[in-house]
Every structure is written in structure tokens, then in C-alpha cells.
């Protein structure tokens, strides 16, 4: 049974390893994956602990459906206190790691302490061993994975690893598995590095009994047919996420030259169709690949066509790399995007964060806030492809003054650079914004301002807002499973009704993250995709646990509130420019300069934004300061937290 997968506590200081079953009562309250991780973080992280200290617990998990007969249960979730933000650290990756961990007998790992020298954790069919990783230190993410396979003599081992960025405690280093699957945000790789933990390797052949196999199989088929027939997913399956980048750029929703523009000009060479051409030329007509059990296959394969790294194989790029190495630094060559993508995958660092910070430094350089003295002679102007890639090396290896400073993240860097550099830093809660520009889309702006892990689109973004859906369709989506009769607007430039949409998506994405499935299998980009009505059936067929859609919604609310409680405990306050639910002043003060007629010339209205946040808090059951009210705590059964049941 999926439900008999265990939790393991691994203390790297003492080498003590303890395994426990996960009680069914806990499952019913938090399911698994990100939700249960939030419970573990709130219970195990001492208040105010040093994110890079031994007390910070690192959770690695699969969802409750991981490796069952549901579609795309590939997601691995990683949580800890973030060394980048000092708040919630949470990141999620696809690939094949979590299913393999489930077949090895585990759904959740809680890793504490710090090893004296580099180690990796080896988990195989119920047994856990801490092994020497001295020979792996200094290796890239893929080199590490292949070396572990060779050492243990099994090609089917899956590993979650860090690269040199994690070893060097770059505060936004990520954890990676496979070629490009990355638990990218909030610096979970630096937490691993701080523990001297190079990798977690798993291999399992233990049965996961399906509660109702025939129903599970048939429902999965129906589910997959629905998913692959959605136009958005067939497009994803052909072009990957770059297609979103192309669409977003066409109407003016892309951060360009840090935050100077909202649309990239002369981008022909990095448009999705061009990238697809390169993939076809280098890998053949069938160059899309998929994560475990997923028929969307949104991950392109390619070889770098030219330049210093010509011929190197990699996967992607995701639209984030097009932002990080394309629009934000205003570099227009496919070679640069594909090389940058390869470098971040090899070093193991968050492409969004590194691209955003380099673009910020480029703006500072052009403004004269930093000079060639700080850049050690590097001509860090916008559009300088070589300088961009050189900065990637410098940051990951902490070389040079600026490389070392930027490796600590935007907020500490702005303190060291000084002057008014902070004003140009596009961040929320200390984490850089992704590559999109939300000035024309208030709903999306509210999403990044209030997302639990800092500026982020995968926590609550009502991305389907951009489709101008008929109100009838919106009502159907947003009144399920909880009735909603307030305003809803098909217009993405409106402020009305957006707080409810953001609240709804916050719960939807939390539910998905607890199940361990991919967001492309839900109402993220496709309005017709699975929803709260479908998941209880999938859970029942696979695990035998029964939930109503409303119960599932409540679980999502509960887990979101736990994340909120953690953030509040670690210092989040509503209007704080660093640790708050706010946006950089440029969202309010600088009108967009490019884009479609309904986007150009827009800013976010301060008063209306404040009203949206108020409304959003109200939907969440939080007071005006963003603190869960006692009724909310009571209703969700959180007033005993931390309850230390696991």
C-alpha cells in the first residue's frame, strides 16, 4: 500500500537513523508531500534557527499518490527554512526520484545535523546507509549521479544531488535529479551543502499495492485522455514551456532588462519555434521526453549548437531559462540561452534567481551604482552574452567580488553594494521575481506578492486569467468545491474578483503538491483539466482513503495556513519590503513601456492592490495583518500546533 510507506529521520551529526510509519490520522490531515512537509517543518525547525546550521531540518518527500497508478506522480518535494529568504524554503521537482524512493519504502525523509565530511545517503529497499562522498565533492550534478551508479553498480539508481553551487553555499543553489529536473527555488541545495550532504540515492523494488487496481487503471486512462486532449498540453508536448514564453512576450508580460521593459524585442533566435528547430536538428524529430508516468512530455532534449560548449547534451530549456538568459539580461542568442541553461543544470543553481540577479547587476552597472571595479573589469552591460555566462561561473564558484556578493542573494547583496541598489531589486520576501512582468495583470501581481515562498508563480497564480474565459466557465471552476458568488472578471487587467481566484489557486496547487502530481495535470494552464472533483476518486482507487472534494479543499487550506504560521513565526509582516506581502515600488510607479494595447502604460494601483490583499486575507481567514484568526485555527484544527505527532 502507498500508505505503508514510512518516514525516516536521519541525523547526520550522530549518524542516528530512525524509521516510523506515518499514522493514518496524520495522512487525513496533511496527506503527504508538501503538506506533510509543512507540518514537519513547523514541528521540527527551532524558531529562528540558522538556515545553514545543523538544526534546520531538510525534508525530502513524495506525495500520497507517488508511484501509484495515477498519472504523473513524479514530483519530489523538498522543504527547509530557506537560506535565501529566512522564511519558508520549498521546492518541487519532476523526474523519477520520488517514485523510486517510494519503491524503496519511503515517502518522507527528515534530515538534520551536519556530517563531519561529505557524505551521501543511500536508501535501498527499506534500508538506509550514510556513505562517504569525498570522491563526489566538486563534481557537477550529472557527474555525481553517474558516479554513484557506477560505485553501487546499478544503472537504475535515482539520486537527488547538489552541484558545485550547493557545495559553495550559493544561497539559491538547487537540488537536482536527472539532467534538468530541479527543485529550484529558495536554496534547498545550499541547505544540503551546509549539511555536507552531496546526494540522496534511492533504489527500490518493493511492491505498492493498489487498493482498487482495475478502477485505478481505467480511471487513469480516462484522466490521461483528458489531459492529453487539452490543447495546452499538446502544445506543451511539442514545444515545452517555451511556448508560454513566446505567448507572454507577444502581449508584453515579460521582464526585460531587469524591469525596464515588459517585452523583449528582436527575440527571433530564442522564440520557442527556433528552439524547437535546434532540438530537431540536434536530437531528431522526437526530442521530447517525460517525467515518470506523464504523457505530456514537456521536456525537450537538445545539444548546444555552437560556442564553447557546442555538442553538450542537455534538456529544456524551460521558459525560465529564456527569461534568465534571454529577456532579463536582453541577450538574444539561442546559444546563450541553451548554454546558460546547461551551466545552471551542471552547477545546480536556480536559473530564475541567478538570471534575475545578474540582470539586476547589469542595471546597476549601467546606472553606475556598480562599476568595473566591482565587476573585476567585466563589462556587465545589458546584451553582453559573454559577461552573462561569465557571471554564472563566478557566482556558482564564488569568484571575484561581485560573484561572491551575488551568491548570497539579492538582499545581502544590496546591503553590500549599498547606495540605492535595493530599489532596483525585483524581489518579494528576498526571492527574485520570475521572468514575468505582472503590471498588466493585477491578479498575477497579487499572486507573487502573497506566495508563501516568495515571488513565485507555482503557489497561487491564476494563469488561466489570461484566457479571457467566459464568466460562466469561470463560475464553474471557481465555485467548486466551495460555493462562491462574489465578483469574477474575465478581464486580466481588472482587480475585481482576483483575490478569490488567487485564494482558489493557492488551495488547488497545495492539493496537487500534497498528492505529488504535476501542475500541468490540473487547472493551471488548462481550464478543463482535473480538479477537486477528480482527485478524491484517484486517491480512493489507489489508496482506499475516502475524501470529499470539500475535505480535500480543507486539507489544502490547513497546509497553507501551516506555511503561513511558519512564515509569521520567522518574521513575516504584511508591509515589510523584505519580509512582507509587498511588491517592489516599480510595480506601482513605473508604467509598462511596451506590449498589447491593454497592457502598455499600466502600473499596479496602490490602493486597489491594498484592497486586493485585504480581500485575499479575508478569504484565507486571516486578519488585516495577515495572521490566521482564532476561528480559522479552530476550524482547521491548528490550535494545537506544533503538536509533535511525527
Amino acid at each position: 500500500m502507498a500508505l505503508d510507506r514510512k518516514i525516516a529521520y536521519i541525523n547526520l551529526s550522530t549518524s542516528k537513523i530512525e524509521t516510523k510509519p506515518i499514522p493514518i490520522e496524520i495522512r487525513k490531515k496533511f496527506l503527504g508531500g508538501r503538506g506533510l512537509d509543512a507540518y514537519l517543518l513547523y514541528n521540527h525547525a527551532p524558531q529562528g534557527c540558522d538556515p545553514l546550521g545543523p538544526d534546520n531540518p531538510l525534508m525530502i518527500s513524495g506525495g500520497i499518490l507517488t508511484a501509484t497508478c495515477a498519472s504523473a506522480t513524479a514530483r519530489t518535494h523538498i522543504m527547509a527554512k530557506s537560506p535565501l529568504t529566512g522564511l519558508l524554503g520549498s521546492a518541487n521537482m519532476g523526474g523519477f526520484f520520488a517514485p523510486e524512493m517510494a519503491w524503496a519504502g519511503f515517502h518522507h525523509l527528515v534530515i538534520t545535523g551536519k556530517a563531519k565530511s561529505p557524505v551521501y545517503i543511500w536508501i535501498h529497499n527499506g534500508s538506509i546507509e550514510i556513505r562517504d562522498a569525498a570522491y563526489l565533492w566538486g563534481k557537477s550534478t550529472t557527474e555525481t549521479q553517474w558516479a554513484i551508479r557506477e560505485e553501487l553498480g546499478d544503472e537504475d539508481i535515482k539520486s537527488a544531488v547538489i552541484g558545485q553551487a550547493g557545495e559553495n553555499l550559493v544561497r539559491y543553489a538547487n537540488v537536482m535529479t536527472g539532467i534538468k529536473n530541479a527543485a529550484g527555488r529558495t536554496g534547498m541545495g545550499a541547505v544540503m551543502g551546509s549539511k555536507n550532504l552531496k546526494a540522496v540515492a534511492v533504489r527500490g523494488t518493493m511492491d505498492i499495492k493498489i487498493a482498487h487496481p482495475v478502477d485505478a487503471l481505467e480511471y487513469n486512462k480516462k484522466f490521461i485522455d483528458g489531459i492529453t486532449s487539452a490543447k495546452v498540453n499538446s502544445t506543451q508536448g511539442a514545444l515545452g514551456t517555451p511556448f508560454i514564453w513566446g505567448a507572454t512576450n507577444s502581449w508584453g508580460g515579460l521582464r526585460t532588462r531587469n524591469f525596464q521593459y515588459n517585452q523583449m524585442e528582436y527575440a527571433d533566435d530564442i522564440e520557442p519555434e527556433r528552439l524547437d528547430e535546434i532540438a530537431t536538428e540536434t536530437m531528431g524529430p522526437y526530442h521530447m521526453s517525460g517525467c515518470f508516468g506523464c504523457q505530456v512530455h514537456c521536456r525537450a532534449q537538445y545539444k548546444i549548437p555552437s560556442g564553447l560548449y557546442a555538442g553538450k547534451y542537455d534538456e529544456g530549456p524551460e521558459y525560465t531559462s529564456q527569461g534568465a538568459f534571454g529577456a532579463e539580461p536582453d541577450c538574444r542568442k539561442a546559444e546563450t540561452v541553451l548554454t546558460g541553461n546547461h551551466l545552471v543544470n551542471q552547477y545546480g543553481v536556480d536559473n530564475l534567481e541567478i538570471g534575475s540577479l545578474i540582470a539586476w547587476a547589469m542595471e546597476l552597472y549601467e546606472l553606475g551604482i556598480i562599476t568595473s571595479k566591482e565587476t573585476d573589469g567585466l563589462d556587465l552591460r545589458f546584451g553582453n552574452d559573454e559577461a552573462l555566462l561569465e557571471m554564472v561561473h563566478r557566482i556558482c564558484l564564488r569568484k571575484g567580488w561581485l560573484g561572491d556578493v551575488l551568491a548570497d542573494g539579492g538582499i545581502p547583496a544590496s546591503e553590500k553594494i549599498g547606495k540605492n541598489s535595493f530599489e532596483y531589486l525585483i524581489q518579494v520576501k528576498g526571492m527574485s521575481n520570475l521572468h514575468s512582468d505582472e503590471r498588466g495583470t493585477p491578479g498575477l501581481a497579487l499572486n507573487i506578492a502573497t506566495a508563501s515562498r516568495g515571488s513565485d508563480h507555482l503557489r497561487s497564480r491564476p494563469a488561466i486569467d489570461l484566457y479571457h474565459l467566459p464568466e460562466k466557465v469561470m463560475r464553474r471552476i471557481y465555485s467548486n468545491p466551495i460555493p462562491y458568488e462574489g465578483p469574477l472578471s474575465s478581464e486580466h487587467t481588472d482587480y475585481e474578483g482576483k483575490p478569490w481566484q488567487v485564494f482558489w489557486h493557492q488551495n488547488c496547487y497545495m492539493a496537487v503538491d500534497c498528492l505529488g502530481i504535476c501542475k500541468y495535470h490540473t487547472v493551471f494552464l488548462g481550464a478543463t483539466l482535473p480538479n477537486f472533483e477528480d482527485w478524491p476518486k484517484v486517491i480512493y482507487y489507489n489508496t482506499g482513503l475516502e475524501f470529499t472534494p470539500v475535505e480535500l479543499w480543507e486539507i489544502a487550506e490547513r497546509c497553507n495556513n501551516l506555511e503561513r504560521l511558519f512564515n509569521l513565526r520567522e518574521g513575516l509582516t504584511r508591509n515589510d519590503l523584505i519580509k512582507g506581502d509587498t511588491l517592489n515600488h516599480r510595480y506601482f510607479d513605473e508604467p509598462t513601456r511596451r506590449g498589447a494595447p491593454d497592457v502598455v502604460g499600466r502600473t499596479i494601483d496602490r490602493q486597489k492592490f491594498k484592497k486586493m490583499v485585504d480581500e485575499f486575507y479575508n478569504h484565507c481567514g486571516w486578519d488585516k495583518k495577515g495572521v490566521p484568526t482564532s476561528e480559522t485555527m479552530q476550524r482547521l484544527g491548528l490550535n494545537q500546533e506544533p503538536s509533535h505527532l511525527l
Partner: protein
Amino acid sequence: MEKVLTVDYQKCTGCRLCELVCSVMHDGISNPARSRIKIVKWEEEGQYVPMICQQCEDAPCKNVCPVGAISRDVDYGFLSIDHTLCIGCRSCVSVCPFGAMNYNQVDKKVFKCDLCGGQPQCVRFCDMKAIDFVPADNMTTKKKRFAATRLFASQKHAAAIQEQIQPIGQTG
């Protein structure tokens, strides 16, 4: 009509859904170690190859079996194991040149592809049709058309290039 499984490895996305549904269909259990199909990968090169039982005509597994437990299904032509006769010596596992005869250490039984009794689930779930179930008499038709398309396209491309190239001596 006899049908056979065909593999076009270029189309495989490596998602391993086939492994999952194979084990669920046969055993009600999710476990690739129980799957009859396996995706062998070269991840560093992005190559994935689905490995299946070829249901060989002159089948080593059938030939080696000391108790005659392996026979050919009259309706669908696949090789099937009679577990009432099987003594569990695993000789068939040893001789299979494709590694398609498997051994389950929990049930202590050998197992192999039985085409799901005529409706292979791997094919049903494979959106890319990297694995397909086709009539044995025209199993290469699709492949021929695909290869011909490429040939046709490149010949057109070559012709176009030739038109552009001016013979030496005629320039300037």
C-alpha cells in the same frame, strides 16, 4: 489475426508509464520490478529504448524448459508459462537473449509478456505509440512510410540546394 508488438524507440519519451500499467494490470501492484516491459535508458545521451519480449519463433525459453512449461498461445501467438508445470529453475531467464524473461523474488515465479491476453496495456497507455500492436503481416508499413517521408523531404531539400548552386565558371 496474429498481431505483434513493435517498438519505435525514437518515439519513446522515457516516462515509464508502460512499466507502471503493466505491473498494475497483471498483479494489482505498482512496481516496475514486476513489469514485463522495461525502458532502458542512456540518460546522458537522451536515449530510451523499450525492451519487450519478442515472442521468438525458435524461442530459447521454450527450448530450454526441462518440463515443457512454456508453450505458444493458439489465439495470439505469444509464449505463455504454465505455472502448474513450472519448477522455478529459471533456465529460461538465463537463456533469453533480450532479458525479457523475468523472475519475481516475492512470488518466486518467472514471468513474461502475455500481450495482456490480446489487449496490451503498454500500447493502450502509450500516447506516442513508441510501442504499438500491429497485424503481423504488415508490421513494417508505418516504418516504411516514416522513412520514405524523410527521404522524400531530404531529396526535395537537396534538389532545392542544387538549383541555388551555380556551376563554377558562370559567376561574375
